[in-house]
């Protein structure tokens, strides 16, 4: 069955909405289409034919937790709970990635991380127990030889591995590097440099000084630190919020998410659909913010296509002499805070907390 409401169509409609009323109408029109953990979990459970008891036995999660997910709209609180479900439902690595990123806001399985590599290996072999991944990781963890391996190479090698011995041999040979996500780190570092650039001296402010100057909460500093030193990627909401704090608009956020092995802003998520529409309006009403973002993105862009896109935007803005709307908007984050609190206060609760 073809999806009657493809994400591309929803995104297009969100981008074409003219004002907040339009956006609000869009949210109401597609209410049944937006991703929702309760609905998704009920579907997974009902289609599997498993009872709470059986799923609890397979996943190691309590029956009450499973009931709560079905009834009250509560969602798993950590990445391992999503992984337990993925094992219990017999998902493939790709399906597990979708579950992690779309519903959990976590990055997908990362082949260069030892534990994720163990999960990947077992899931693609049809493993059904999360505990097996933990046991395998315990064996890998004894070999601490951080030999870097390109992500794509690691993924390809993992796919070709047939037995546990081969897997352990692979880990011993290639190890797992401390940290990772080099592209994401480079992108963020570049953004931070752009934000903290002193126009007079041409030098960059340290991250801490920059965050203090921009009134960015210290928790983001911790996120950056964890990413740079240990390769731990923040959750999706935090990453989006950080991007907005750094002045990124739609293209920049999409780039940031893709580098973190996550989907771009998803129009089937109510909050992100709202973000897409609101950012689009912000770009039209306050082109100076879009210009600023494009300039920063150009500075950080490594792909020629993205650089071209930024240059095109900058030259269009310059040629047409866009004027800003009379109402003052100090930042994209500030503008979005107001919009989200107005239109989707409950769903955007977490994101609002970060903004």
């Amino acid at each position: 069955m073809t999806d009657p409401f493809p994400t591309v169509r929803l995104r297009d409609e969100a981008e074409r909405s003219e004002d907040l009323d339009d956006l609000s109408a869009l949210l109401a029109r597609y209410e049944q289409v937006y991703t929702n953990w309760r609905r998704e979990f009920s579907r997974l459970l009902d289609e599997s034919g498993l009872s709470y008891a059986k799923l609890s036995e397979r996943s190691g999660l309590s029956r009450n937790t499973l009931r709560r997910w079905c009834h009250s709209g509560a969602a798993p609180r950590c990445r391992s709970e999503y992984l337990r479900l993925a094992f219990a439902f017999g998902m493939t690595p790709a399906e597990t990635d979708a579950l992690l990123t779309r519903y959990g806001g976590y990055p997908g399985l990362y082949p260069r991380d030892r534990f994720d590599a163990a999960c990947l290996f077992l899931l693609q072999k049809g493993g059904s127990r999360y505990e097996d991944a933990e046991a395998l990781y315990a064996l890998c963890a004894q070999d601490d030889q951080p030999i870097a391996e390109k992500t794509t190479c690691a993924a390809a090698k993992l796919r070709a591995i047939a037995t546990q011995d081969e897997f352990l041999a692979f880990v011993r040979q290639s190890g797992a590097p401390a940290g990772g996500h080099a592209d994401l780190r480079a992108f963020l570092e570049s953004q931070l440099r752009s934000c903290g650039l002193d126009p007079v001296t041409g030098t960059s402010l340290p991250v801490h000084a920059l965050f203090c100057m921009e009134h960015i909460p210290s928790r983001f500093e911790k996120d950056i630190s964890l990413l740079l030193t240990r390769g731990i990627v923040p959750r999706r909401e935090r990453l989006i919020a950080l991007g907005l704090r750094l002045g990124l608009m739609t293209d920049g956020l999409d780039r940031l998410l893709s580098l973190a092995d996550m989907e771009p802003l998803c129009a089937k998520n109510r909050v992100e659909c709202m973000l897409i529409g609101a950012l689009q309006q912000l770009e039209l009403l306050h082109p100076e913010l879009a210009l600023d973002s494009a300039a920063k993105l150009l500075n950080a862009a490594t792909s020629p296509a993205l650089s071209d896109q930024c240059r095109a935007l900058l030259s269009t803005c310059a040629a047409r002499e866009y004027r800003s709307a009379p109402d003052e908007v100090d930042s994209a984050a500030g503008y979005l805070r107001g919009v989200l609190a107005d239109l989707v206060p409950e769903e955007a609760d977490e994101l609002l907390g970060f903004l």
Partner: protein
Amino acid sequence: MEHIPEPLWGRWYPGEQLYAGESAEVYALTLREGSGRACVLKCIRVPYGRADELARVWESVRVQERMADCGGAVAILDECQLEMPAADGRPACTEVLLRMERLDCLAELLREGAQFSEEEIQRLARDLLETLVFARRLNLVHRDIKPANIYRSPSGRWKLGDFGVCAHTDGQSFASAAGTAAYMAPEAAAGKSSGAQEDLYSLGIVLYQLLNGGFLPLTGSDSTYAEIQNSIAARLRGVRVPPVCCRSRQLRRAVLRACDPNPARRYQSAAQMLTVLTPRKRSVLLPACACLLALAAGFTASRLLPSSRRLSPDAVSTAAPIAAVHTAGSDTSASLSAPAAVTERTEVSSGDADVVHRYEVILQPLSWLDAKLWCESRGGHLATITSAEESSQVTELLASAGAQAVWLGADNRNTANGFTWVTGEPFVYAEWGKGEPNNDGGTEYYLMLTHSQDEGWVWNDSRDDGLVLFQTGASGFVCEWEGDAP
């Protein structure tokens, strides 16, 4: 629920949240002063200013109310609409509040690991098919039949809920998106509606799933996520499902035919499928068995059997005591669906010497509509009282059963001229209590017989759920069967 004024509808208090969806929440609803049967409060939120959406909600409520008239849909007992303000005082959203009967959801029963006997599955099929027959009369297609929208009442009757995506078969739809892929007919997935047959396919898949231990067609306990998704996609492409394991050949064939991907090969109507699944009376082939069952159900043998095959008076006199023992003891057919209740039975002669009235008191606080259905599904009707003699017979029976309040078979819900008996008998005899009937609150449509210290046994008009005010175990209803004397 702090934003909702309490008590609701004068006496109901919202309790724990049972369910929270995207636009609706469901809460337990109880009477603080009593321990009667609880209801649920469904709270549907519509953003302020969305008049079209609000109209759609109310339209689906009206459809459900009409469907509930046949007893096949979850009954809506009260309703109201509130404008909820935001923190700044501006209107934020409209809330549609519905008080509904509290039932068990089939999806939840399955998640809790419930297993269903073939008899229970057959009953589910018949109950839902009856509902679909009624829907057909109203030109409605439900379009989303699945375990999550099927409910079981305390009396064991299966009902349909959530008419939010149903459509008129004349093409005038009032919802955009419809259906759930796992239960959707192939033609519906392809965007070509086959009308009422879509519902038969979905029902067929539900029955298949129940007979298959809770697993969808082409899947089992070891199926991976991808295998399940592929099986659903295959069915939507038109792949036929294999026969399900089932003792009853009739049920197996019916399910297989309902699940046929080609709508032309499915049953052409719910009524046709219902006929196939309705057990045929075996009175002609097994007159003695028929006699036993008929007597157990309150019939006289001569009423049930064709006149040419009536049993001799000797045969009836032999069968009657056996039937009486059967009735009082292990009546397996009744235990499948009858509410657990203290019952009192009696058989009395009316003024007409040829007519025997058999009464049975069931002490189970069902709603009036459920009680009516309970009696009718067993070949009887809610008791009618058309004379002082009948009244004293019934009240004696109630006194010995320890009852305080019971439903009788009269209502004025759809009439302009006062109460009418469910049998069509003239409503000429009455024993109303002081000040009754008073239609308090505008929804007291049903006839109740209650006992008070001052007045003794008197009649009162009551709401459909009026028995919740009485002590559990002392309230219920009286069924009546009648027939020629043997």
